[in-house]
């Protein structure tokens, strides 16, 4: 047996799979460091986070609704001003047309009388 064969046999024996002694896993787990507990602040976040989300959603919704209402009001005001302008134009033309007709009649009546 040469040196190489001796080394191979030694390695084979030492690296052979062996069963762990009973209770080994439990002892290893027991020695593991405990997982850190959540800090008090993080706990508060967990409590408040859903509330904050709802508040943000409500604020966003209110902003959208408010913006929509404001836009509606703005459009209505523009349409109203336009309608007012149309009324004024209609009254103006009505008054002037009526005046022109009556003026013509009066002029012709005077002409006939003369």
């Amino acid at each position: 047996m040469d040196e190489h064969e001796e080394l191979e046999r030694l390695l084979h024996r030492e690296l052979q799979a062996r069963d762990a002694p009973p209770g080994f896993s439990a002892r290893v787990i027991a020695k593991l460091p405990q997982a850190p507990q959540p800090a008090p602040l993080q706990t508060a976040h967990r409590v408040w986070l859903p509330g904050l989300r709802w508040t943000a959603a409500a604020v966003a919704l209110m902003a959208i609704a408010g913006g929509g209402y404001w836009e509606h009001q703005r459009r209505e005001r523009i349409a109203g001003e336009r309608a007012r302008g149309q009324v004024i134009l209609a009254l103006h033309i009505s008054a002037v047309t009526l005046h022109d007709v009556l003026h013509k009649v009066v002029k012709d009546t005077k002409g006939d009388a003369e």
Partner: protein
Amino acid sequence: MRSLSVLTALGLFALAAAAQSITPPFPVTLEKELAARASNYTEVSLDKKMLAFAGKFMDGNAEDAEAKQMLATLNGIYVREYEFDKPGQYTTADLENIRSQFNGSDWSPMVRERSKKGEGDSDIYIRLVDGKMQGMFVLDAEPNDLSFVYIDGALDPSELSRLGGSFGIPKHVTKRAAKEVSK
């Protein structure tokens, strides 16, 4: 069988009512033709809804308040003003066509001026219901202009007079018009 005839009658009644409701309040005859012939035209149609809507925005000053008060009793104002490049863009038949729509029993001609070619005609028709003015139609034809105004609703000439000096309407215009109309 009886119920069928009742249903038919109801259907006919509904159709008649619908036809009446879609009848335009202003005579639309020739509008498109006149607009096509005109070099410049103004058409304003304001029904009761539009007048009420405009009224909401007429609170700014005293003249607005007076106009608003006048508009409250009206069902509509319809104005057409056509300007032509040259005379002869409308005929006496056109004018007759427009006038014919105010020949109903409610309407009374108050002013009627006729020229040979119809290019100097003037008309004022007034609609009287129970002795109260409920509408007015004014037609003014000039060689290069044609205007007609239809005011639907209770119109008080004294209110018309109060509008003088407002909205660019000269005071003497409404004063004279109100005086003549209320005669």
